[in-house]
């Protein structure tokens, strides 16, 4: 193999790999029928339990494939994975895995991890509180609302993010 051919081959292989990644798996026959939509609403709950900020996301996945969410704040990073799966009896479950790194003046940098499973029906809303849900006066909290439904290409909004307030990026 000549030295000129190697870079050309690398370019071809890389572009082939990238094209393969960009192809949505819902276009693959056999996976489209199994695809699920996970609607995610991340909220910041301020004092008096009012919603200070929220952002909405829609992700398409299949049973067993995790939707990964990373929330980056001033003193916190939350890495959450939500994996829907269906049992043989047809019941659907959602597995939530969370890793939290939080820096507080009192405790310093703290790491916390969790994994929890909950039965979920299509259209049912589930809440995940990565920092806990025991809100105290004057402390902001993170709430992640999740809703699962079967994939329907006609009525499915494009994957993406819609933020009501605050700066976000994807």
């Amino acid at each position, binding site marked *: 193999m000549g030295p000129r051919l190697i870079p050309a081959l690398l370019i071809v292989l890389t572009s082939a790999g990238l094209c393969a990644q960009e192809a949505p798996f819902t276009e*693959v026959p056999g996976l489209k029928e199994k695809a699920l939509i996970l609607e995610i609403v991340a909220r910041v709950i301020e004092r008096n339990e009012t*919603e200070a900020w929220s952002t909405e996301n829609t992700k398409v996945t299949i049973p*067993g494939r995790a939707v*990964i969410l990373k929330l980056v704040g001033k003193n916190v990073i939350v890495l959450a994975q939500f994996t829907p799966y269906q049992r043989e009896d047809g019941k659907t*479950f959602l597995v939530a895995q969370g890793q939290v790194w939080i820096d507080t003046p009192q405790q310093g940098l703290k790491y916390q991890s969790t994994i929890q499973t909950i039965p979920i029906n299509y259209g049912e809303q589930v809440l995940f509180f990565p920092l806990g849900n025991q809100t105290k006066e004057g402390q902001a909290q993170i709430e992640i609302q999740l809703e699962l439904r079967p994939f329907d290409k006609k009525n499915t909004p494009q994957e993406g993010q819609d933020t009501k307030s*605050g700066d976000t990026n*994807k």
Partner: protein
Amino acid sequence: MGNMCPDKSLLSLYLDGELPSPWKEKLETHLLHCGSCQIQAKKLQGLHQDLHTLPCPPMEVIQAAQKRVWQQLAVKIKEGQGNSQKHRFSWNRPVAIPLPAAIAALILVALVASLAGPLLFSPGNGASHLPVARINTEVQNIVPVSNIENLVQYLEMQAATADIVIIKLPETQNFVPAGQPTLLKAVEYQGRKKP
């Protein structure tokens, strides 16, 4: 004797007058045409006649013969018992168990089975109430590679560019831990009123 010839036992039955119709008539027709069966029938008839015409032996001879047979049988039985005792001692002999002891044994067996059964047969040491994930998604040719080496590279590339939703939280907020991470249904959450 040809293939269609009757069995010797049928011939014997016929000669003893014990073969019923229609087999009797069929056999008679066969005997008219089959030489080998005629010979066989004559032999059996001769034996039959000999048995009836032979003089009866004296009683002493009969008794001596019986004695010899019984002695030989006794020796055979003793040898047979010696061999079978090695293998069938506990199985062939009836064992008498008192009724209260038998009942107590049954209760003990039932108790042990009820205690040990769930431990032995439940999957995951009694964690059967937990949901078990069985995801059987089998789709061919979804990865554009043909061998394991390329697959490893492909998966590494996928991991590097994993589809992660990154959300930047408001800079103005400071967060504090508020208990353990919690996953629950929205209808069960009473902490906050919906906006």
